[in-house]
């Protein structure tokens, strides 16, 4: 049983998705999806534990040997990502039943959970697999279900947002596919491990170079790197609130995982950072992303939009950490991956609660919420502080490592710019705080009550995680350190 965990991690949610159809009552479907997601979380915990003690796990699908059969490969990096995805999915799903009552018609609830599980399975698959083509397959599974999920949004603009995401996402996926096709043509293999050994022989060819460029651009579209981020704000803003919380915390993280996987594991560090001027490219794009998106966030009227832009800015931080291409830099990126998932899921879940109570998340609707929904607003404040990077929250930990990595490399101006960028976060977070706490409640909104427990519990679980992992960093630091070191080929494989 334990030996089959790598495949169970993916197959459990995938098989569970169609099973939802057999359950009649929405509440049952929800419970079922929750249990499945919880199982996935449990599996990922065991996997992480195994990987940390005894190194990477290789699982051959159907017993076929590696270059011919599909291989699942769980190393520290993928185990870490699996944990993030399944944990966030489970916590978010907890609030789903209440939240979609008001946002999605009852006859589509089952569909919602099916798509949710498929999307989850797709993301887990991308991370678990060791096969380049399999990556594409899972990418499509997760993306297609995500498009449909976004289109379920109550606002009619959700359709347009989903369509926009569909177009951009498909272009991205196609680029990745073209890239994979080209390297297959050159090496005759799709297994990542195999690829990494055969690619150096043909590294000088134009085809490999083209393949690399296609894959990088495709992945960057998926991870919404500035200026390829245009699909993201609307998709996040008009999707059902639960889906925003889920996708914001996981989808872009998976894309970052792909970026790291392809550059470090498949193409190799020396190839990736010498063929294309990746370092300078990513520093510049990352920093412009931080500034452009944070500034845009300041001017948003819809709070979901605001945090969506903030997500793009946060991706900028991860990309800067990546571009440093040292162990510390990569650690910063991985830490921020984890930490940002915690912050954004907490924040978007709190927005879901606001949506549930007042039916909208325009900034003007936040007036007086500090008194009416004190616990939800407190969660937003703490999440916001974490976003700014105040000590004792997770945001501080990742910022510390990022600055340290940048300074180690001697990039002083970049360090200053990163810190200046985080000031913009102060501005957009404080706009919400001031509206919620200093403006009198809107007329006719006296009846607004605190969010129900089915929201408060998951929100505060995430908020406490934001503080807990900001104080006790042993787990996150240890895992990211080992993962970063193994990607650089030092330390245990």
């Amino acid at each position, binding site marked *: 049983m334990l030996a089959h965990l790598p495949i169970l991690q993916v197959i459990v949610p995938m098989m569970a998705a169609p099973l939802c159809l057999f359950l009649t009552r929405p509440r049952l479907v929800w419970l079922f999806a929750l249990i499945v997601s919880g199982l996935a979380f449990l599996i990922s915990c065991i996997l992480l534990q195994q990987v940390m003690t005894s190194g990477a796990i290789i699982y051959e699908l159907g017993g076929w040997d590696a270059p011919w059969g599909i291989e699942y490969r769980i190393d520290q990096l993928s185990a870490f990502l699996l944990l993030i995805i399944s944990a966030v999915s489970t916590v978010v799903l907890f609030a789903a039943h209440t939240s979609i009552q008001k946002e999605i018609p009852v006859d589509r609830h089952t569909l919602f959970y099916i798509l949710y599980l498929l999307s989850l399975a797709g993301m887990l698959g991308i991370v678990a697999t060791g096969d380049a083509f399999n990556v594409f397959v899972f990418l499509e599974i997760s993306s297609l279900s995500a498009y449909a999920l976004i289109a379920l949004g109550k606002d009619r603009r959700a359709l347009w947002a989903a369509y926009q995401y569909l177009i951009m996402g498909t272009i991205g996926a196609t680029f990745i596919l073209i890239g994979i096709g080209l390297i297959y043509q050159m090496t005759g293999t799709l297994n990542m491990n195999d690829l990494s050994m055969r690619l150096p022989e043909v590294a000088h060819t134009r085809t490999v170079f083209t393949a690399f460029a296609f894959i990088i651009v495709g992945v960057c579209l998926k991870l919404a790197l500035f200026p390829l981020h245009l699909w993201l704000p609307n998709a996040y803003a008009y999707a059902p609130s639960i889906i925003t919380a889920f996708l914001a915390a996981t989808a872009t993280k998976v894309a970052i995982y792909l970026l790291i996987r392809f550059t470090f594991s498949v193409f190799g560090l020396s190839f990736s950072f010498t063929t294309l001027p990746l370092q300078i490219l990513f520093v510049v794009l990352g920093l412009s992303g931080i500034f452009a998106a944070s500034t845009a966030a300041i001017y948003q009227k819809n709070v979901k939009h605001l945090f969506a832009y903030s997500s793009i800015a946060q991706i900028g931080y991860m990309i800067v950490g990546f571009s440093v291409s040292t162990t510390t830099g990569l650690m910063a990126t991985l830490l921020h991956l984890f930490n940002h998932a915690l912050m954004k899921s907490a924040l978007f879940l709190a927005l879901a609660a606001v949506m549930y109570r007042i039916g909208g998340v325009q900034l003007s609707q936040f007036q007086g919420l500090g008194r009416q929904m004190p616990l939800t607003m407190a969660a937003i404040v703490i999440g916001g*502080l974490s976003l*700014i*990077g*105040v*000590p*004792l929250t997770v945001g501080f*930990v990742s*910022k*510390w490592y990022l*600055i*340290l990595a940048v*300074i*180690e490399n001697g990039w002083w101006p970049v*360090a*200053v710019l990163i*810190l*200046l960028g*985080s*000031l913009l976060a*102060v501005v957009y977070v*404080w706009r919400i705080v*001031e509206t919620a706490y*200093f403006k009198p409640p809107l007329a006719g909104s006296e009846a607004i009550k605190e969010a129900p427990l089915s929201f408060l519990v998951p929100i505060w679980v995430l908020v406490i995680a934001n503080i807990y992992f*900001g*104080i*006790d*960093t042993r787990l996150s*630091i240890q895992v990211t350190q080992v993962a970063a070191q193994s990607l650089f080929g030092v330390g245990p494989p």
Partner: protein
Amino acid sequence: MNISLATMLQLSIILPILAALGIVATGRKPDLREGVTISTCLVLLYFTVNLYQGIKQGESINVQWWEILPGLQLSFNVEPLGMIFALIASFLWLITTVYSIGYMRSHQEQNQTRFYVCFSIAIGSVMGIAFADNLFTLFIFYETLTLSTYPLVTHAGTEEAKKGGRIYLGILLSTSIVFFMLAIISTWFVAGTLDFKPGGVFDSNVNTTVAGVILVLFIFGIGKAAIMPFHRWLPAAMVAPTPVSALLHAVAVVKAGVFTVLKVCVFIFGIDLLSVLPTTQFLLYLAGASVLLASLVAMRQDNLKARLAYSTVSQLGYVTIGALLATSSGVIASSMHIAMHAFGKITLFFCAGAILVAAHKSKISEMRGLGRQMPITMAAFFIASLSIIGVPPAGGTWSKWFLLMGTMEAEQWILMAVLMISSLLNIAYLLPIPFRAFFPGVETNSVNVGIKEAPLPSLIALCITTAACVVLFVYPQPLYELAKAILTTPGLTYGQ
């Protein structure tokens, strides 16, 4: 009770934060709530006095909590400088609580529970700063202090309060995130440690340019020290209720700033390195300019609290100068001035609050002839002003004395002149207030209102702090001993 000193050290940080919970729980019953606050104050004072006795007997008191990041630990240590700060803060917290009970009730302020809760957390943070054993721990509590005082600044909830809060948070948070944090990470990168060590953490062969830049980052980053041009938050914070201005913006928050400056100068750079850095001179002149300019601005303020705020900016410059002079007299002067200015300025703020509550006046121009109505308050104002100016019979004399000695030792003649001129300016903007109150000159509307002082708790509080100003003049030895011990004793222990 038999509690070990190490436990007391931890409790002095945790207790005020726990008390915040108690205050929330008893929020509906004001008397009980104030009871919780007062008893916490008393216990905290008991702890700090015990800790003082402890280090006086040469015991080393330190506690390690856990590592937040590898190599960066939350740890605490009692050393003389922190002891001075902790003693002042815990003593004045007690006095301020007594004062604010009178003030808040007679002023019928809203949200009093939130007020006491934030106050309590702020004091816990101050204790954390005072006893921090490394920069990392200090930084964490420094930020907590900023955030916990924000609701106090915006207490009134008005548009003006919101604006004040914006400036307050904007400046303190941005300087600390951009400069302070960068300085800390750079120090970590260059020196490999953030522990406070006697003589500093940098190697003797450290690149002085780099260290000089880091020093500038520190001085700019510690926005709470209110060196111009990062001083605007302090006048902005004056929208807060007077007890907040008194304790936090004359004692706890600003003193946390200059305390941090002093701590960084003495225990991160060390005075030997500090004196050879290329940027020290520039920063000294900047602090000097801050002293003079703030005094000049203070003269033009008609709002009493605003005038006191600018006076604080100017006085904080003294402490920074003392630290940057990098001589032993300078360090003694700075640490003594932290105490002297605390008592003087809190008295002045108490008086301002008393005048507001009893006579409903906040403008200086309206205070002519007020001495008949509030003789005690105005007398206290006079004595406290003397302490700020630095003339006998008030405590400020001593710190100014050592500061002038420090400038002479370091042969900083320009700064010496700056300090002299500043004293004259102090006279010009402080003394006219009590003088005109007692001797209005022209006979103002001579409606004899009789004596109408502030509520009794407030009056008692301001009498105590005034008395303290005088006592510190007559009997400054304990303070001086502590201040001297900062530099002389190795290993951060003191006594014998």
